[in-house]
């Protein structure tokens, strides 16, 4: 099984990739805060070049207040930038120069993990771990075959997070069914599974022996945005 | 004894004849060349004729072919939309120099770059005819029009647009590009026919500019009209094939 525990001398560099609306940003935020709570110094980088002003910017202020180092455009930064084209905040290019752990939230797009080419030294970094976030209710990843096809198109993937949910309409059955075929697809491709991510609303509702995989309960931050 | 009926191409739409172009206008000659080319290629039933706004509009029911109208400059995208949807149809866009080189220039340029499989025929008569003789992109330096009453000054309004030359520069070798003139009917018909054959073969973009006459707005008599076409215009706009994937150019 894939393990996140690294030797303590090594810092953590994780990049989250996945489908549009797969939950990359939520997982990245949760991971950054988890590491911070463990006493790490953490930089969270918004690398969404397709819609930078729609994602982290809405909650970046709130995240700053938690003590994370955030590299993201703020609402006020976006003034005059107009069309949200491929905007890369210069600091993001040098994100790995930051001391401590670096969590990279990679936006969706046909280039997948290749977006990391924009981050100086990313692919040369021995610590880099590229993690695909998959939600089994997304049309492009709603079956074993489709998930497999999607993972194959992504390029380098070091691990997979099973993140099946249906927003406010999530049920335990939906979680179990979706995560099962994602797991099968990942296992077919020999990609390790990092963990199952489940909304903290389900804490205590899931039988302990449901899976032989680690489960992480995550808090949803994005609903704090207006949509 | 009644005179024999004038020979009309089979693909012409008889109820719309006689046509409504001015006496001495070159459009009739271009459309006759097109009609005969359609007949010889036997494509009347597959042809879609699309005309622009301007004098070219007067041809909207000229052919016994399925035909459609659009807005000024927009014939090119309408033809592209049809061709992309029904590749078996032979799409023929017919426009003037204002529609093609001015208000619709972005469509012309980009459809040429994309090597769209359509045939466009652009009639160059050096002015906006239907609106009353204003300056067009093709107006010659020094030429008087209603909006260049002292003659076109290239310092102020630039030089005439060299359409086939710029299209030849942006298209691949599978495109057909030529400039003909109503003064040489046989040659013109050959160009138009080749432009249609190039589309039928699925090769690429096919474009023919035609030097034509506009005595009404030029205010010229027959002799002056012909002189302007053959001497003045040809000096600025060289006639010939610039690209011909189906054979050797004759330029």
């Amino acid at each position, binding site marked *: 099984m894939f393990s996140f525990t690294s030797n303590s001398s090594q810092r953590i560099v994780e990049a989250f990739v996945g489908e*549009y*609306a797969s939950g990359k940003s939520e997982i990245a935020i949760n991971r950054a805060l988890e590491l911070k709570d463990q006493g790490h110094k953490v930089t969270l980088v918004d690398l969404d070049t*397709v*819609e930078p*002003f*729609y994602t982290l910017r809405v909650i970046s202020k709130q995240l700053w207040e938690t003590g994370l180092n955030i590299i993201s455009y703020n609402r006020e930064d976006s003034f005059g930038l*107009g*069309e*949200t084209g491929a905007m890369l905040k210069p600091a993001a290019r040098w994100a790995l120069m930051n001391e401590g752990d670096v969590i990279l939230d990679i936006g969706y797009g*046909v280039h997948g993990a290749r977006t990391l080419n924009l981050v100086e030294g990313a692919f040369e970094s021995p610590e880099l771990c590229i993690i695909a976030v998959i*939600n089994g*209710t*997304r*049309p*492009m990843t*709603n079956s074993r075959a489709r998930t497999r096809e999607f993972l194959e198109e992504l390029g380098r993937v070091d691990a997979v997070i099973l993140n099946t*949910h*249906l*927003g*406010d*309409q999530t049920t335990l059955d*939906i979680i179990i069914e979706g995560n099962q075929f994602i797991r099968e697809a990942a296992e077919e491709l020999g990609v390790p599974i990092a963990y199952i991510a489940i909304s903290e609303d389900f804490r205590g509702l899931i039988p302990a022996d449901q899976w032989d995989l680690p489960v992480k309960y995550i808090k949803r931050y994005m609903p704090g945005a*207006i*949509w | 004894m009644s005179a024999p009926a004038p020979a009309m191409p089979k693909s012409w*739409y008889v109820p719309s004849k006689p046509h409504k172009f001015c006496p001495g206008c070159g459009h009739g000659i271009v459309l006759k060349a097109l009609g005969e080319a359609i007949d010889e290629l036997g494509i*009347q*039933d*597959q042809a*879609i004729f*699309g005309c622009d*706004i301007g004098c070219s*509009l007067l041809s*909207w*029911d000229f*052919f*016994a*072919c*399925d*035909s*459609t*109208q*659009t*807005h000024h400059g*927009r014939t*090119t*995208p*309408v*033809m*592209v*939309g*049809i061709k*992309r*949807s*029904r590749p078996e*149809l032979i799409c023929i866009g017919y426009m003037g120099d204002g529609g093609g080189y001015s208000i619709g220039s*972005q*469509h012309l*340029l*980009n*459809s040429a770059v994309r090597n769209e499989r359509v045939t466009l025929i652009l009639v160059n008569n050096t002015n906006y005819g239907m609106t009353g003789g204003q300056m067009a992109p093709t107006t010659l330096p020094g030429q008087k029009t209603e909006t260049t009453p002292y003659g076109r000054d290239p310092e102020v309004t630039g030089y005439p647009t060299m359409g086939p030359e710029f299209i030849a520069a942006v298209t691949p070798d599978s495109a057909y590009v030529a400039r003909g003139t109503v003064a040489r009917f046989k040659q013109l018909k050959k160009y138009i026919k080749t432009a249609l054959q190039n589309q039928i073969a699925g090769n690429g973009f096919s474009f023919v500019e035609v030097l034509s006459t506009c005595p009404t707005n030029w205010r010229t008599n027959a002799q002056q009209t012909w002189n302007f076409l053959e001497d003045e215009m040809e000096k600025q706009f060289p006639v010939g094939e610039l690209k011909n994937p189906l054979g050797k150019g004759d330029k």
Partner: protein
Amino acid sequence: MPNVIGEPKKSFMTGNETAAWACLAAGAEIMFGYPITPQNEIMHYWTRLAPKYDKGFLQTEDELSAGFTVCGSVQSGKKAFTATAGPGNVLMQEPFGMAEAMRLPLLAIIQQRGGPSSGTVVYSQQEVTLTTFGGNGEGMRIVYSTASHQEIYDYIIKGFNTAWKYRFPVFILGDGYQAKMREPLEMYDPEDRGIEMVKPYPLIGLGGEIGKDREAEHLCNIYSLEEELYEVVMKVAAEYESIQDNLVEYSEKNCEDADVIILSHGVVSRAAEDAMNILRAQGIKAGYFRPITLRPYPQQQLRDAIAKSGAKVLLCAESAYGQLQRLTKQELYGETIKMESLFMPGVGIIDYDIVEKVKSVI
């Protein structure tokens, strides 16, 4: 038509993706488009799906071209569509006008952004006037204003049928929030819900031998005489009016005894419904009325709601400076109900904003 969805499935999606999948499920054959935020992912997803389902796509040089290629495509008998926003919607009014004049059954998805001019790329409801009455015509269009991803899906399927059945251009009016927000919906193949998709047919390129099997088709889009045009416009207007009753859609809640009716459309109506419930819980008799079709407008239904409730105030809440209210005023000519407004151009409206406003005007 091959099943594209199969077993109906709940999916967690953005509005733009929903639009692309809905077009696919509706049997759309080709999209023409030009990049503009916030509709881009409609193109992104369509181009991802197109080769898998043998569908067409062309990225044109601008929105004029996107609109006119769609006009050409539907004339040739294909179910074609486009999507745009803001300044792109302005440019497309020219081809949309052609579609109105020539009765071309095109479908356009409009994801409103902030205006005027380039405005913001994010959100607004400021393309109501443009989408309902844009162009040099008489507004002979059908405009559905959606409020959820499920509605984007449902009304795109319905919209293609409306377009091909009645041959008026159809608009799905969304906005940047709907385009980008994520929520669950159920996708389905229309046939599985008993929805029969209207088959497209060509207006030109009709086959057969001309002069023998049939006459050549000459589609006309310009008229030489005032009287000719008059006859055409009057005929189109009469046809439009004759189908209005079949087309009008609206949603009405708690208007039977309402003292105040909250009027809204699109995504704002979600906040309006929440606000109504909050107000009711506080003992304030609030009602809710939402036109789903902005063209044609459910004017008789709104008049009836006002009459039966005896409401004193009609509060219009919109993320624009009065575009819905202007539309409503002209439709309600003669009514004497007091009209109040909550105009928040380019800004999202939440239930609290409406609750506070209602309390300040009653």
